[in-house]
Protein backbone atom coordinates (compact mmCIF):
# COMPACT_ATOMS: atom_id res chain seq x y z
CA UNK A 1 0.00 0.00 0.00
CA UNK A 2 1.48 3.29 -1.06
CA UNK A 3 -0.88 5.68 0.70
CA UNK A 4 -1.59 7.16 -2.70
CA UNK A 5 -4.00 4.46 -3.78
CA UNK A 6 -7.55 3.41 -3.13
CA UNK A 7 -7.25 -0.17 -1.99
CA UNK A 8 -9.88 -2.88 -1.75
CA UNK A 9 -8.69 -6.09 -0.12
CA UNK A 10 -10.96 -9.07 -0.61
CA UNK A 11 -14.04 -6.90 -0.11
CA UNK A 12 -17.49 -8.43 -0.24
CA UNK A 13 -20.82 -6.89 0.48
CA UNK A 14 -24.09 -8.75 0.73
CA UNK A 15 -27.59 -7.34 1.17
CA UNK A 16 -29.03 -10.23 3.15
CA UNK A 17 -28.78 -13.09 0.68
CA UNK A 18 -28.29 -10.79 -2.29
CA UNK A 19 -24.78 -10.20 -3.57
CA UNK A 20 -23.64 -6.60 -3.91
CA UNK A 21 -19.98 -7.13 -4.71
CA UNK A 22 -17.84 -10.17 -4.07
CA UNK A 23 -14.13 -10.63 -3.34
CA UNK A 24 -13.04 -7.35 -4.82
CA UNK A 25 -9.31 -6.69 -4.87
CA UNK A 26 -8.31 -3.36 -6.34
CA UNK A 27 -5.56 -0.79 -6.11
CA UNK A 28 -6.68 2.37 -7.86
CA UNK A 29 -3.94 4.90 -8.71
CA UNK A 30 -4.48 8.62 -9.39
CA UNK A 31 -6.11 9.60 -12.68
CA UNK A 32 -9.52 8.96 -14.14
CA UNK A 33 -10.80 5.49 -13.36
CA UNK A 34 -14.12 4.35 -14.74
CA UNK A 35 -16.32 1.73 -13.20
CA UNK A 36 -18.17 0.09 -16.04
CA UNK A 37 -21.02 -2.36 -15.87
CA UNK A 38 -24.75 -2.75 -16.35
CA UNK A 39 -27.33 -1.85 -13.72
CA UNK A 40 -26.92 -4.13 -10.73
CA UNK A 41 -23.30 -4.95 -11.49
CA UNK A 42 -22.12 -3.33 -8.25
CA UNK A 43 -20.84 0.09 -9.36
CA UNK A 44 -22.84 2.12 -6.84
CA UNK A 45 -22.19 -0.46 -4.12
CA UNK A 46 -18.46 -0.12 -4.73
CA UNK A 47 -18.69 3.69 -4.54
CA UNK A 48 -20.81 3.59 -1.40
CA UNK A 49 -18.31 1.23 0.18
CA UNK A 50 -15.49 3.58 -0.80
CA UNK A 51 -17.20 6.48 0.95
CA UNK A 52 -18.39 4.65 4.05
CA UNK A 53 -22.08 4.90 3.22
CA UNK A 54 -22.01 1.11 3.24
CA UNK A 55 -19.82 -1.20 5.29
CA UNK A 56 -18.22 -4.27 3.78
CA UNK A 57 -19.53 -7.66 4.93
CA UNK A 58 -15.89 -8.73 4.80
CA UNK A 59 -12.56 -7.37 3.67
CA UNK A 60 -10.79 -4.06 4.10
CA UNK A 61 -10.91 -0.74 2.30
CA UNK A 62 -8.29 1.97 2.50
CA UNK A 63 -8.64 5.38 0.89
CA UNK A 64 -5.20 6.96 0.71
CA UNK A 65 -4.44 5.56 4.14
CA UNK A 66 -7.81 6.38 5.74
CA UNK A 67 -10.58 3.90 6.52
CA UNK A 68 -14.00 4.83 5.12
CA UNK A 69 -15.58 4.47 8.57
CA UNK A 70 -13.74 7.59 9.70
CA UNK A 71 -15.86 10.30 7.99
CA UNK A 72 -14.25 13.11 9.95
CA UNK A 73 -10.94 12.47 8.15
CA UNK A 74 -12.23 10.88 4.97
CA UNK A 75 -14.43 13.70 3.70
CA UNK A 76 -11.71 16.27 4.19
CA UNK A 77 -10.19 14.88 0.98
CA UNK A 78 -13.04 12.92 -0.60
CA UNK A 79 -15.96 14.36 -2.53
CA UNK A 80 -18.84 12.16 -3.60
CA UNK A 81 -21.42 13.05 -6.21
CA UNK A 82 -24.06 10.42 -5.58
CA UNK A 83 -26.76 9.13 -7.84
CA UNK A 84 -29.37 9.97 -5.19
CA UNK A 85 -31.51 12.71 -6.63
CA UNK A 86 -32.92 14.03 -3.36
CA UNK A 87 -31.91 17.14 -1.47
CA UNK A 88 -32.67 18.64 1.93
CA UNK A 89 -36.05 20.38 1.66
CA UNK A 90 -36.38 24.01 0.72
CA UNK A 91 -32.72 24.71 -0.03
CA UNK A 92 -31.41 26.96 -2.77
CA UNK A 93 -28.37 25.92 -4.75
CA UNK A 94 -26.23 28.35 -2.76
CA UNK A 95 -27.54 27.15 0.61
CA UNK A 96 -26.93 23.54 -0.40
CA UNK A 97 -23.22 24.12 -0.90
CA UNK A 98 -22.78 26.76 1.80
CA UNK A 99 -24.40 24.65 4.54
CA UNK A 100 -22.28 21.68 3.46
CA UNK A 101 -19.13 23.75 3.87
CA UNK A 102 -20.30 24.97 7.27
CA UNK A 103 -20.61 21.30 8.23
CA UNK A 104 -16.91 21.08 7.40
CA UNK A 105 -16.44 23.69 10.12
CA UNK A 106 -15.56 26.50 7.68
CA UNK A 107 -16.25 30.02 8.94
CA UNK A 108 -18.83 32.11 7.10
CA UNK A 109 -16.51 34.15 4.87
CA UNK A 110 -14.47 31.16 3.72
CA UNK A 111 -17.57 29.02 3.17
CA UNK A 112 -19.20 31.82 1.18
CA UNK A 113 -16.15 32.29 -1.03
CA UNK A 114 -15.72 28.55 -1.63
CA UNK A 115 -19.44 28.19 -2.36
CA UNK A 116 -19.36 30.80 -5.12
CA UNK A 117 -16.18 29.32 -6.57
CA UNK A 118 -17.76 25.84 -6.81
CA UNK A 119 -21.01 27.22 -8.22
CA UNK A 120 -19.09 29.23 -10.82
CA UNK A 121 -17.14 26.15 -11.78
CA UNK A 122 -20.32 24.24 -12.68
CA UNK A 123 -21.81 27.37 -14.29
CA UNK A 124 -24.83 27.69 -12.01
CA UNK A 125 -24.21 31.23 -10.77
CA UNK A 126 -27.45 32.60 -12.19
CA UNK A 127 -29.51 29.84 -10.58
CA UNK A 128 -27.73 29.84 -7.21
CA UNK A 129 -30.50 31.75 -5.45
CA UNK A 130 -33.25 29.51 -6.76
CA UNK A 131 -34.69 26.55 -4.89
CA UNK A 132 -33.18 23.23 -5.99
CA UNK A 133 -36.69 21.80 -6.17
CA UNK A 134 -37.18 23.94 -9.28
CA UNK A 135 -33.94 22.85 -10.98
CA UNK A 136 -33.86 20.71 -14.11
CA UNK A 137 -32.23 17.28 -14.00
CA UNK A 138 -29.04 18.68 -15.50
CA UNK A 139 -28.91 21.54 -12.98
CA UNK A 140 -29.41 19.14 -10.09
CA UNK A 141 -26.59 17.05 -11.45
CA UNK A 142 -24.35 20.13 -11.60
CA UNK A 143 -25.17 21.32 -8.09
CA UNK A 144 -24.31 17.84 -6.78
CA UNK A 145 -21.05 18.07 -8.67
CA UNK A 146 -20.41 21.47 -7.11
CA UNK A 147 -20.96 19.92 -3.67
CA UNK A 148 -18.49 17.16 -4.49
CA UNK A 149 -15.73 19.56 -5.59
CA UNK A 150 -16.38 22.57 -3.34
CA UNK A 151 -13.76 21.58 -0.72
CA UNK A 152 -11.05 20.75 -3.30
CA UNK A 153 -10.93 17.01 -2.62
CA UNK A 154 -8.07 14.77 -3.67
CA UNK A 155 -10.43 11.89 -4.35
CA UNK A 156 -13.54 12.57 -6.36
CA UNK A 157 -16.13 9.80 -6.56
CA UNK A 158 -18.78 10.45 -9.21
CA UNK A 159 -21.74 8.16 -9.73
CA UNK A 160 -23.08 8.64 -13.27
CA UNK A 161 -22.02 12.30 -13.23
CA UNK A 162 -22.85 13.00 -16.86
CA UNK A 163 -26.49 11.89 -16.63
CA UNK A 164 -28.88 14.59 -17.73
CA UNK A 165 -26.22 17.02 -18.93
CA UNK A 166 -26.59 18.63 -22.34
CA UNK A 167 -23.72 18.10 -24.82
CA UNK A 168 -22.03 21.44 -24.13
CA UNK A 169 -22.06 21.07 -20.35
CA UNK A 170 -21.07 17.42 -20.78
CA UNK A 171 -17.97 18.46 -22.70
CA UNK A 172 -17.14 21.12 -20.11
CA UNK A 173 -17.64 18.62 -17.29
CA UNK A 174 -15.38 16.07 -18.94
CA UNK A 175 -12.75 18.81 -19.34
CA UNK A 176 -13.12 19.54 -15.63
CA UNK A 177 -12.54 15.88 -14.78
CA UNK A 178 -9.47 15.86 -16.98
CA UNK A 179 -8.05 18.97 -15.37
CA UNK A 180 -8.60 17.47 -11.91
CA UNK A 181 -6.95 14.19 -12.92
CA UNK A 182 -3.98 16.05 -14.40
CA UNK A 183 -3.29 17.58 -11.00
CA UNK A 184 -2.78 14.11 -9.55
CA UNK A 185 -6.25 13.61 -8.09
CA UNK A 186 -8.20 10.38 -8.14
CA UNK A 187 -11.35 10.75 -10.22
CA UNK A 188 -13.55 7.65 -10.00
CA UNK A 189 -16.45 7.70 -12.42
CA UNK A 190 -19.21 5.18 -12.90
CA UNK A 191 -20.90 5.13 -16.23
CA UNK A 192 -22.72 2.87 -18.57
CA UNK A 193 -22.10 5.10 -21.60
CA UNK A 194 -19.12 3.22 -22.91
CA UNK A 195 -17.87 5.49 -25.65
CA UNK A 196 -17.74 8.30 -23.09
CA UNK A 197 -15.77 6.16 -20.66
CA UNK A 198 -13.44 5.19 -23.48
CA UNK A 199 -12.70 8.79 -24.27
CA UNK A 200 -11.92 9.99 -20.77
CA UNK A 201 -10.54 7.10 -18.71
CA UNK A 202 -6.97 6.39 -17.79
CA UNK A 203 -8.07 3.00 -16.55
CA UNK A 204 -11.27 1.01 -16.32
CA UNK A 205 -12.74 -1.48 -13.90
CA UNK A 206 -15.23 -3.79 -15.54
CA UNK A 207 -17.91 -5.18 -13.27
CA UNK A 208 -20.47 -7.87 -13.79
CA UNK A 209 -22.92 -9.27 -11.24
CA UNK A 210 -20.85 -8.02 -8.34
CA UNK A 211 -17.51 -9.29 -9.61
CA UNK A 212 -14.58 -7.35 -11.02
CA UNK A 213 -14.01 -9.07 -14.36
CA UNK A 214 -11.12 -6.90 -15.53
CA UNK A 215 -9.19 -3.82 -14.52
CA UNK A 216 -6.43 -1.68 -15.87
CA UNK A 217 -5.77 0.40 -18.97
CA UNK A 218 -8.23 -0.58 -21.64
CA UNK A 219 -5.54 -1.53 -24.15
CA UNK A 220 -3.85 -3.79 -21.62
CA UNK A 221 -7.13 -5.43 -20.71
CA UNK A 222 -7.90 -5.99 -24.38
CA UNK A 223 -4.54 -7.64 -25.01
CA UNK A 224 -5.24 -10.13 -22.23
CA UNK A 225 -8.48 -11.27 -23.81
CA UNK A 226 -6.86 -14.13 -25.69
CA UNK A 227 -10.06 -15.92 -26.67
CA UNK A 228 -10.92 -13.12 -29.05
CA UNK A 229 -8.18 -12.26 -31.58
CA UNK A 230 -7.58 -8.54 -31.91
CA UNK A 231 -9.33 -6.81 -34.79
CA UNK A 232 -7.27 -4.34 -36.80
CA UNK A 233 -8.73 -2.09 -39.45
CA UNK A 234 -6.36 -1.25 -42.30
CA UNK A 235 -7.51 1.60 -44.46
CA UNK A 236 -6.01 1.32 -47.97
CA UNK A 237 -6.85 1.77 -51.63
CA UNK A 238 -6.61 -1.94 -52.66
CA UNK A 239 -7.87 -4.13 -49.80
CA UNK A 240 -8.32 -7.22 -51.97
CA UNK A 241 -4.68 -7.24 -53.05
CA UNK A 242 -3.51 -6.70 -49.51
CA UNK A 243 -5.76 -9.51 -48.21
CA UNK A 244 -4.16 -12.06 -50.53
CA UNK A 245 -0.71 -11.25 -49.08
CA UNK A 246 -1.83 -11.00 -45.48
CA UNK A 247 -2.89 -14.63 -45.34
CA UNK A 248 0.78 -15.54 -45.66
CA UNK A 249 1.17 -14.54 -41.99
CA UNK A 250 0.55 -17.35 -39.51
CA UNK A 251 -0.69 -14.92 -36.85
CA UNK A 252 -3.66 -13.88 -38.96
CA UNK A 253 -6.86 -15.75 -38.16
CA UNK A 254 -9.23 -13.93 -40.44
CA UNK A 255 -9.24 -11.08 -42.96
CA UNK A 256 -12.19 -9.60 -44.73
CA UNK A 257 -12.77 -6.55 -46.85
CA UNK A 258 -14.58 -3.82 -44.98
CA UNK A 259 -18.21 -3.10 -45.87
CA UNK A 260 -17.33 0.19 -47.51
CA UNK A 261 -14.70 -1.51 -49.71
CA UNK A 262 -12.02 0.90 -48.56
CA UNK A 263 -10.34 -1.18 -45.94
CA UNK A 264 -9.45 -4.57 -44.60
CA UNK A 265 -10.54 -5.96 -41.27
CA UNK A 266 -7.93 -8.37 -39.90
CA UNK A 267 -8.15 -10.61 -36.83
CA UNK A 268 -4.82 -11.59 -35.34
CA UNK A 269 -3.61 -13.39 -32.23
CA UNK A 270 -0.35 -11.46 -32.14
CA UNK A 271 -0.96 -7.81 -33.00
CA UNK A 272 2.56 -6.68 -32.13
CA UNK A 273 4.14 -9.15 -34.58
CA UNK A 274 1.50 -8.32 -37.14
CA UNK A 275 2.34 -4.63 -37.01
CA UNK A 276 6.05 -5.46 -37.44
CA UNK A 277 5.49 -7.60 -40.50
CA UNK A 278 2.81 -5.50 -42.13
CA UNK A 279 5.23 -3.16 -43.88
CA UNK A 280 7.03 -6.05 -45.57
CA UNK A 281 3.77 -7.33 -46.94
CA UNK A 282 2.60 -4.15 -48.51
CA UNK A 283 2.63 -4.78 -52.25
CA UNK A 284 3.32 -2.29 -54.92
CA UNK A 285 0.42 -0.01 -55.69
CA UNK A 286 -1.20 -0.42 -52.25
CA UNK A 287 -1.28 2.82 -50.32
CA UNK A 288 -1.90 2.48 -46.59
CA UNK A 289 -3.95 5.30 -45.09
CA UNK A 290 -4.16 4.08 -41.53
CA UNK A 291 -3.77 1.04 -39.33
CA UNK A 292 -5.71 1.02 -36.06
CA UNK A 293 -7.24 -1.44 -33.61
CA UNK A 294 -10.95 -1.92 -34.30
CA UNK A 295 -12.06 -3.53 -31.04
CA UNK A 296 -9.67 -1.99 -28.56
CA UNK A 297 -12.48 -0.25 -26.68
CA UNK A 298 -14.49 -0.77 -23.54
CA UNK A 299 -17.57 -1.89 -25.41
CA UNK A 300 -15.79 -4.72 -27.21
CA UNK A 301 -13.80 -5.76 -24.18
CA UNK A 302 -16.93 -5.80 -22.08
CA UNK A 303 -18.76 -7.92 -24.62
CA UNK A 304 -15.87 -10.35 -24.97
CA UNK A 305 -15.54 -10.74 -21.22
CA UNK A 306 -19.15 -10.80 -20.20
CA UNK A 307 -20.82 -11.84 -23.42
CA UNK A 308 -23.89 -10.30 -24.99
CA UNK A 309 -26.02 -11.67 -22.11
CA UNK A 310 -23.92 -9.86 -19.52
CA UNK A 311 -26.60 -7.26 -19.08
CA UNK A 312 -27.71 -4.15 -20.85
CA UNK A 313 -25.18 -1.39 -20.56
Amino acid at each position, binding site marked *: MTGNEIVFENVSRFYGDVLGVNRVNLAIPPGITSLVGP*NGSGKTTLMNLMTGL*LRPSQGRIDILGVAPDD*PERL*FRFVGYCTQFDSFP*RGMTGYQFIY*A*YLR*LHGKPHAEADEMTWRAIDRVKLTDAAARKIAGYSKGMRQRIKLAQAICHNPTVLVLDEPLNGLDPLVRAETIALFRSLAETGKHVIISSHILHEVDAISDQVILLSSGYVVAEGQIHGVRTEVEDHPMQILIRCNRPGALASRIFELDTVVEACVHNDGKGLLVRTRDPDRFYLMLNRLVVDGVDLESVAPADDDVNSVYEYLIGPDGGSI
Partner: protein
Amino acid sequence: MNHDSWSLWRAQVAAILRLEIKKNFLAKRGLWIYLLAAAPVVLMWVHAALNLRDHRVCDLGHDSLIFAAMFQFFYLRLAIFFGCVGVFLRLFRGEMMEKSLHYYLLAPVRREVLLVGKYLAGVITTSIIFCTGTALALIALLVHVPRTAAEQYLFAGGGLGHVLAYIGTAALACIGYGGVFLLMGFLFRNPVVPVVLVFLWEGANPFLPALLKRLSVIFYLHSLIPISVPAQGDFAFLAILSTPTPAYLAVAGLLLIALAGLWLAARQVRKLEINYGVE
Protein backbone atom coordinates in the same frame (compact mmCIF):
# COMPACT_ATOMS: atom_id res chain seq x y z
CA MET B 1 -9.21 14.94 21.81
CA ASN B 2 -7.75 18.44 21.85
CA HIS B 3 -9.04 21.98 21.86
CA ASP B 4 -9.18 22.06 18.06
CA SER B 5 -11.45 19.03 18.01
CA TRP B 6 -13.84 20.61 20.48
CA SER B 7 -14.02 23.88 18.58
CA LEU B 8 -14.58 21.98 15.32
CA TRP B 9 -17.36 19.92 16.89
CA ARG B 10 -18.96 23.06 18.31
CA ALA B 11 -18.92 24.66 14.86
CA GLN B 12 -20.36 21.51 13.31
CA VAL B 13 -23.10 21.18 15.93
CA ALA B 14 -23.97 24.84 15.32
CA ALA B 15 -24.18 24.16 11.57
CA ILE B 16 -26.42 21.14 12.19
CA LEU B 17 -28.63 23.17 14.54
CA ARG B 18 -29.10 25.90 11.91
CA LEU B 19 -30.30 23.34 9.40
CA GLU B 20 -32.33 21.14 11.70
CA ILE B 21 -34.18 23.70 13.80
CA LYS B 22 -35.44 25.45 10.68
CA LYS B 23 -36.47 22.12 9.20
CA ASN B 24 -38.22 20.99 12.40
CA PHE B 25 -40.17 24.19 12.79
CA LEU B 26 -41.22 24.46 9.16
CA ALA B 27 -42.07 20.80 8.53
CA LYS B 28 -45.60 20.53 7.21
CA ARG B 29 -45.81 17.07 8.70
CA GLY B 30 -45.27 18.62 12.12
CA LEU B 31 -48.39 20.80 12.04
CA TRP B 32 -50.24 18.43 14.38
CA ILE B 33 -47.53 18.99 17.01
CA TYR B 34 -48.39 22.68 17.10
CA LEU B 35 -52.06 21.74 17.45
CA LEU B 36 -51.27 19.44 20.39
CA ALA B 37 -49.23 22.16 22.06
CA ALA B 38 -51.90 24.78 21.43
CA ALA B 39 -54.87 22.74 22.69
CA PRO B 40 -54.57 23.65 26.41
CA VAL B 41 -53.59 27.20 25.49
CA VAL B 42 -56.78 27.62 23.50
CA LEU B 43 -58.87 26.07 26.31
CA MET B 44 -57.33 28.28 28.98
CA TRP B 45 -57.67 31.42 26.89
CA VAL B 46 -61.29 30.67 25.98
CA HIS B 47 -61.96 30.14 29.68
CA ALA B 48 -60.22 33.43 30.50
CA ALA B 49 -62.03 35.31 27.73
CA LEU B 50 -65.44 34.05 28.84
CA ASN B 51 -64.74 35.02 32.44
CA LEU B 52 -63.54 38.46 31.41
CA ARG B 53 -66.60 38.97 29.19
CA ASP B 54 -69.00 37.89 31.93
CA HIS B 55 -67.04 39.73 34.66
CA ARG B 56 -66.86 36.54 36.68
CA VAL B 57 -64.35 36.28 39.50
CA CYS B 58 -62.44 33.02 39.36
CA ASP B 59 -61.05 30.91 42.13
CA LEU B 60 -57.34 30.85 41.31
CA GLY B 61 -56.79 27.81 43.53
CA HIS B 62 -59.45 25.86 41.64
CA ASP B 63 -58.19 27.00 38.25
CA SER B 64 -54.61 26.14 39.08
CA LEU B 65 -55.76 22.64 40.08
CA ILE B 66 -57.49 22.31 36.70
CA PHE B 67 -54.32 23.48 35.01
CA ALA B 68 -52.27 20.99 37.02
CA ALA B 69 -54.56 18.14 35.95
CA MET B 70 -54.41 19.24 32.35
CA PHE B 71 -50.63 19.54 32.47
CA GLN B 72 -50.22 16.18 34.15
CA PHE B 73 -52.71 14.10 32.18
CA PHE B 74 -52.82 15.82 28.80
CA TYR B 75 -49.67 17.85 28.31
CA LEU B 76 -47.08 15.45 29.71
CA ARG B 77 -48.73 12.16 28.89
CA LEU B 78 -50.14 12.98 25.47
CA ALA B 79 -49.01 16.27 23.93
CA ILE B 80 -45.31 16.22 24.79
CA PHE B 81 -45.12 12.43 24.50
CA PHE B 82 -46.50 12.36 20.96
CA GLY B 83 -44.86 15.66 20.04
CA CYS B 84 -41.51 14.06 20.83
CA VAL B 85 -42.53 10.96 18.89
CA GLY B 86 -43.17 13.22 15.89
CA VAL B 87 -39.90 15.12 16.11
CA PHE B 88 -37.32 12.68 17.44
CA LEU B 89 -38.39 9.58 15.53
CA ARG B 90 -38.02 11.52 12.32
CA LEU B 91 -34.56 12.92 12.98
CA PHE B 92 -32.85 10.03 11.22
CA ARG B 93 -35.70 7.81 10.05
CA GLY B 94 -37.44 10.71 8.31
CA GLU B 95 -34.34 11.66 6.37
CA MET B 96 -33.78 8.04 5.44
CA MET B 97 -37.33 7.92 4.07
CA GLU B 98 -36.85 11.19 2.20
CA LYS B 99 -33.49 9.91 0.91
CA SER B 100 -31.64 12.99 2.08
CA LEU B 101 -29.58 11.64 4.98
CA HIS B 102 -26.49 11.19 2.78
CA TYR B 103 -26.11 14.99 2.75
CA TYR B 104 -24.90 14.78 6.34
CA LEU B 105 -23.05 11.51 5.96
CA LEU B 106 -20.91 12.92 3.13
CA ALA B 107 -19.60 15.71 5.34
CA PRO B 108 -16.51 15.31 7.55
CA VAL B 109 -18.68 15.07 10.64
CA ARG B 110 -18.30 12.38 13.26
CA ARG B 111 -21.50 10.37 13.41
CA GLU B 112 -21.73 11.04 17.15
CA VAL B 113 -21.47 14.79 16.56
CA LEU B 114 -24.28 14.50 14.00
CA LEU B 115 -26.35 12.59 16.55
CA VAL B 116 -25.81 15.20 19.25
CA GLY B 117 -26.54 18.05 16.84
CA LYS B 118 -29.77 16.51 15.67
CA TYR B 119 -30.82 15.60 19.23
CA LEU B 120 -30.16 19.12 20.47
CA ALA B 121 -32.13 20.51 17.54
CA GLY B 122 -35.03 18.24 18.52
CA VAL B 123 -34.79 19.29 22.17
CA ILE B 124 -34.69 22.98 21.26
CA THR B 125 -37.62 22.66 18.86
CA THR B 126 -39.89 20.68 21.18
CA SER B 127 -38.89 22.72 24.23
CA ILE B 128 -39.70 25.99 22.49
CA ILE B 129 -43.06 24.65 21.30
CA PHE B 130 -44.15 23.06 24.57
CA CYS B 131 -42.57 25.53 27.00
CA THR B 132 -44.21 28.35 25.06
CA GLY B 133 -47.49 26.44 25.21
CA THR B 134 -47.12 25.99 28.96
CA ALA B 135 -46.24 29.65 29.48
CA LEU B 136 -49.15 30.90 27.37
CA ALA B 137 -51.59 28.63 29.22
CA LEU B 138 -50.25 29.90 32.56
CA ILE B 139 -50.65 33.51 31.40
CA ALA B 140 -54.27 32.69 30.55
CA LEU B 141 -54.63 31.28 34.06
CA LEU B 142 -53.64 34.61 35.59
CA VAL B 143 -54.98 37.09 33.10
CA HIS B 144 -58.58 36.97 34.26
CA VAL B 145 -58.03 37.12 38.01
CA PRO B 146 -57.67 40.44 39.82
CA ARG B 147 -54.18 41.86 39.54
CA THR B 148 -53.59 41.82 43.30
CA ALA B 149 -54.59 38.17 43.53
CA ALA B 150 -52.28 37.31 40.65
CA GLU B 151 -49.38 39.21 42.23
CA GLN B 152 -49.99 37.58 45.57
CA TYR B 153 -50.09 34.15 43.95
CA LEU B 154 -46.90 34.79 41.99
CA PHE B 155 -44.75 36.54 44.55
CA ALA B 156 -46.15 35.50 47.92
CA GLY B 157 -47.89 32.20 47.29
CA GLY B 158 -45.05 30.45 45.49
CA GLY B 159 -46.76 30.83 42.11
CA LEU B 160 -43.61 32.00 40.34
CA GLY B 161 -41.88 28.83 41.46
CA HIS B 162 -44.82 26.85 40.09
CA VAL B 163 -44.58 28.64 36.74
CA LEU B 164 -40.87 27.92 36.48
CA ALA B 165 -41.41 24.32 37.60
CA TYR B 166 -44.07 23.73 34.94
CA ILE B 167 -41.93 25.23 32.19
CA GLY B 168 -38.85 23.36 33.40
CA THR B 169 -40.78 20.10 33.61
CA ALA B 170 -41.99 20.57 30.02
CA ALA B 171 -38.39 21.10 28.87
CA LEU B 172 -37.15 18.09 30.84
CA ALA B 173 -39.95 15.99 29.37
CA CYS B 174 -38.67 16.89 25.90
CA ILE B 175 -35.13 15.95 26.95
CA GLY B 176 -36.21 12.60 28.45
CA TYR B 177 -38.68 11.50 25.79
CA GLY B 178 -36.31 12.83 23.13
CA GLY B 179 -33.60 10.41 24.20
CA VAL B 180 -36.05 7.51 24.24
CA PHE B 181 -37.57 8.17 20.82
CA LEU B 182 -34.28 9.03 19.16
CA LEU B 183 -33.08 5.56 20.12
CA MET B 184 -36.32 3.92 18.98
CA GLY B 185 -35.92 5.54 15.58
CA PHE B 186 -32.72 3.53 15.17
CA LEU B 187 -33.88 0.28 16.70
CA PHE B 188 -37.16 -0.29 14.92
CA ARG B 189 -37.95 -0.25 11.23
CA ASN B 190 -41.60 0.32 12.11
CA PRO B 191 -41.69 2.04 15.49
CA VAL B 192 -45.50 2.25 15.84
CA VAL B 193 -45.85 -0.83 18.05
CA PRO B 194 -42.88 0.09 20.29
CA VAL B 195 -44.28 3.61 20.70
CA VAL B 196 -47.65 2.19 21.76
CA LEU B 197 -45.89 -0.10 24.22
CA VAL B 198 -43.94 2.81 25.72
CA PHE B 199 -47.16 4.81 25.91
CA LEU B 200 -48.86 1.98 27.81
CA TRP B 201 -45.83 1.56 30.07
CA GLU B 202 -45.83 5.26 30.90
CA GLY B 203 -49.60 5.19 31.47
CA ALA B 204 -49.33 2.19 33.77
CA ASN B 205 -46.67 3.89 35.87
CA PRO B 206 -48.89 4.59 38.93
CA PHE B 207 -49.70 0.89 39.14
CA LEU B 208 -46.15 -0.39 38.84
CA PRO B 209 -44.02 -1.56 41.78
CA ALA B 210 -41.75 1.15 43.15
CA LEU B 211 -38.64 -0.20 41.45
CA LEU B 212 -40.21 -0.44 38.01
CA LYS B 213 -41.68 3.05 38.34
CA ARG B 214 -38.14 4.37 38.07
CA LEU B 215 -37.76 2.91 34.60
CA SER B 216 -40.00 5.52 33.07
CA VAL B 217 -39.82 9.18 32.15
CA ILE B 218 -43.19 10.10 33.63
CA PHE B 219 -42.15 8.96 37.13
CA TYR B 220 -39.46 11.62 37.32
CA LEU B 221 -41.67 14.24 35.69
CA HIS B 222 -44.35 13.61 38.32
CA SER B 223 -41.80 14.32 40.99
CA LEU B 224 -41.12 17.72 39.45
CA ILE B 225 -44.61 19.09 38.88
CA PRO B 226 -45.60 21.46 41.67
CA ILE B 227 -49.18 20.25 42.12
CA SER B 228 -49.71 16.55 41.76
CA VAL B 229 -53.27 15.46 40.99
CA PRO B 230 -53.93 11.96 42.33
CA ALA B 231 -55.25 9.25 40.02
CA GLN B 232 -59.02 9.00 40.08
CA GLY B 233 -61.53 6.53 38.71
CA ASP B 234 -62.36 2.85 39.02
CA PHE B 235 -58.76 1.67 39.00
CA ALA B 236 -57.37 4.38 41.25
CA PHE B 237 -57.28 1.98 44.18
CA LEU B 238 -54.71 -0.10 42.27
CA ALA B 239 -52.27 2.78 42.23
CA ILE B 240 -49.19 2.09 44.30
CA LEU B 241 -48.14 5.06 46.34
CA SER B 242 -44.46 5.74 46.51
CA THR B 243 -42.43 8.49 48.05
CA PRO B 244 -41.84 11.28 45.55
CA THR B 245 -38.27 11.54 44.37
CA PRO B 246 -36.45 14.72 45.41
CA ALA B 247 -36.26 17.23 42.54
CA TYR B 248 -32.51 16.96 42.11
CA LEU B 249 -32.74 13.18 41.83
CA ALA B 250 -35.66 13.45 39.42
CA VAL B 251 -33.67 15.80 37.17
CA ALA B 252 -30.68 13.50 37.39
CA GLY B 253 -32.88 10.50 36.59
CA LEU B 254 -34.31 12.21 33.52
CA LEU B 255 -30.89 13.26 32.30
CA LEU B 256 -29.66 9.73 32.87
CA ILE B 257 -32.47 8.30 30.76
CA ALA B 258 -31.71 10.81 28.00
CA LEU B 259 -27.98 10.07 28.17
CA ALA B 260 -28.61 6.31 28.08
CA GLY B 261 -30.78 6.80 25.00
CA LEU B 262 -28.10 8.94 23.36
CA TRP B 263 -25.33 6.50 24.22
CA LEU B 264 -27.22 3.55 22.76
CA ALA B 265 -28.21 5.64 19.73
CA ALA B 266 -24.55 6.58 19.23
CA ARG B 267 -23.71 2.87 18.97
CA GLN B 268 -26.36 2.57 16.27
CA VAL B 269 -25.39 5.69 14.34
CA ARG B 270 -21.83 4.46 13.97
CA LYS B 271 -23.18 1.43 12.11
CA LEU B 272 -25.70 3.42 10.10
CA GLU B 273 -25.65 2.76 6.36
CA ILE B 274 -27.33 4.47 3.48
CA ASN B 275 -29.46 2.00 1.62
CA TYR B 276 -32.22 3.77 -0.21
CA GLY B 277 -32.71 0.77 -2.46
CA VAL B 278 -30.65 2.04 -5.38
CA GLU B 279 -28.91 -0.73 -7.34
